[in-house]
C-alpha cells in the first residue's frame, strides 16, 4: 500500500463530513454548503486518482465537475433568495 | 464590436490551452464553441478592451498573485487555529466597509480576494459600501477595519483593473 493510496482514502473519507452536514443540517442553507464543499472535494479526489492510476482524463472530469457543481449551487442560491433565474 | 473580437480570441486561446492539441478538427471545434460563447455572452464583457494590451497591468498582476497567495496561506492557518482550538475563539458579525474603487470588474475582483483572505466573506455591494461577514470582529472603529479588510489589496486591484 502506497502513501498516495492512503491520502486518496483520507480524501474520499472527508466527503463523509460533508454527507453528515447534508443529512443533519438544520436548515436548507447548511445542506447547500455541504453540497458546495463536496463539489470542491471531488476535484481533489479526481486529481489524486489521476496521479495514482496515471490516467490523464480524470483531471478533465474534475474541471467539468466543478463547473457543473458551481451552476447547481448558483441555481439553488437564487432559488432560496426568492428570485427568478434571469434576474 | 471590438469587445466581441477580444472575447472570441480569449475564449479560443482558453479552448486550445484546455485541450492542448493543434489538430485541424480540434481548432474547428474550438472556433465553433468560441463563436457560440461570444454571441451569447459578448454583451457582458468589459467595455475598454484596450486595457488587455498594456503590459504594465500584467506586471502588477504577477506581483499581486504573490501577495494574494501569502495572504491566502495566512488565512488558512488562521482558520485552522480557530477550528482546532477547543474553545473556538470566534466573534462573528457583518460589518460595513467603504470602497475606494469604481469599476465593476475591479469590485468583483476585490470581493473575490476578500472572500479568500483571513476570516472575511463579501456579502453584498450597495453603492459605495461593501458588507462583509467577519469571523472575528476585532475593532469597533470603521476606519480601522476598512483598512484591515480591503486596504492590502486595493492599491494592487486599482493598478490592474481600473
Amino acid at each position, binding site marked *: 500500500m502506497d502513501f498516495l493510496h492512503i491520502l486518496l482514502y483520507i480524501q474520499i473519507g*472527508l466527503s463523509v*463530513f460533508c454527507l453528515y452536514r447534508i443529512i443533519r443540517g438544520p436548515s436548507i442553507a447548511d445542506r447547500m454548503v455541504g453540497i*458546495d464543499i463536496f463539489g470542491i472535494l471531488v*476535484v481533489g479526489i479526481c486529481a489524486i486518482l489521476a496521479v495514482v492510476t496515471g490516467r490523464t482524463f480524470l483531471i478533465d472530469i474534475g474541471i467539468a465537475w466543478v463547473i457543473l457543481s458551481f451552476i447547481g449551487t448558483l441555481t439553488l442560491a437564487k432559488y432560496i433568495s426568492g428570485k427568478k433565474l434571469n434576474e | 464590436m471590438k469587445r466581441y473580437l477580444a472575447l472570441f480570441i480569449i475564449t479560443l486561446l482558453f479552448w486550445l490551452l484546455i485541450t492542448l492539441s493543434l489538430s485541424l478538427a480540434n481548432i474547428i471545434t474550438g472556433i465553433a464553441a468560441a463563436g457560440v460563447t461570444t454571441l451569447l455572452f459578448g454583451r457582458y464583457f468589459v467595455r475598454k478592451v484596450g486595457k488587455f494590451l498594456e503590459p504594465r497591468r500584467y506586471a502588477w498582476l504577477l506581483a499581486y498573485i504573490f501577495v494574494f497567495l501569502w495572504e491566502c496561506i495566512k488565512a488558512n492557518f488562521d482558520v485552522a487555529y480557530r477550528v482546532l482550538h477547543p474553545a473556538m475563539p470566534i466573534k462573528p458579525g457583518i460589518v460595513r466597509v467603504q470602497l475606494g474603487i469604481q469599476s465593476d470588474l475591479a469590485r468583483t475582483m476585490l470581493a*473575490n480576494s476578500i472572500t479568500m483572505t483571513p476570516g472575511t466573506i*463579501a*456579502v453584498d455591494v450597495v453603492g459605495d459600501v461593501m458588507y462583509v461577514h467577519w469571523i472575528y470582529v476585532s475593532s469597533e472603529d470603521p476606519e480601522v477595519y476598512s483598512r484591515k479588510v480591503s486596504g492590502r489589496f486595493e492599491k494592487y486591484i486599482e493598478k490592474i483593473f481600473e
Partner: protein
Amino acid sequence: MASTILIAIGVLFNLFGCIGLIRLPDVYNRLQSATKTVTLGTWSILIGVLVRYGFIDIGVKALIAIPILFFVATVSAHALVRGSYIFGIPLGKKSVKDDYKEQYEK
C-alpha cells in the same frame, strides 16, 4: 517526493476545513472555514500534480483548474451567504454586529 508532500499538505487542509464544517455554530461561519481551507487544500493538490508531471497535458490542465476553482469557490460562497441571509437564517448566538440588517430592511 515534493509532489507527495504537497498533496499531503492539501489533504491535511481539506481535513481542517471539513472539521470546521462540523464544529462551527452557524451557516455563515461554516462557509467561512470550509470555502477557504478546502479551496487552498485543493490548490495544493493540483500544484502537487503539476510538480509531478511537469508541463505536459495533465500538468497544464491542473494549472488551468486553479483559477477556475478560485472563481467558482468565491462566487458560490458569496451567492450562498447572500441567499441564506435573504432566506432569513439568523446569525449565530455569538454574533456581535450586524450592519447589513438595516440596509436589507430598507
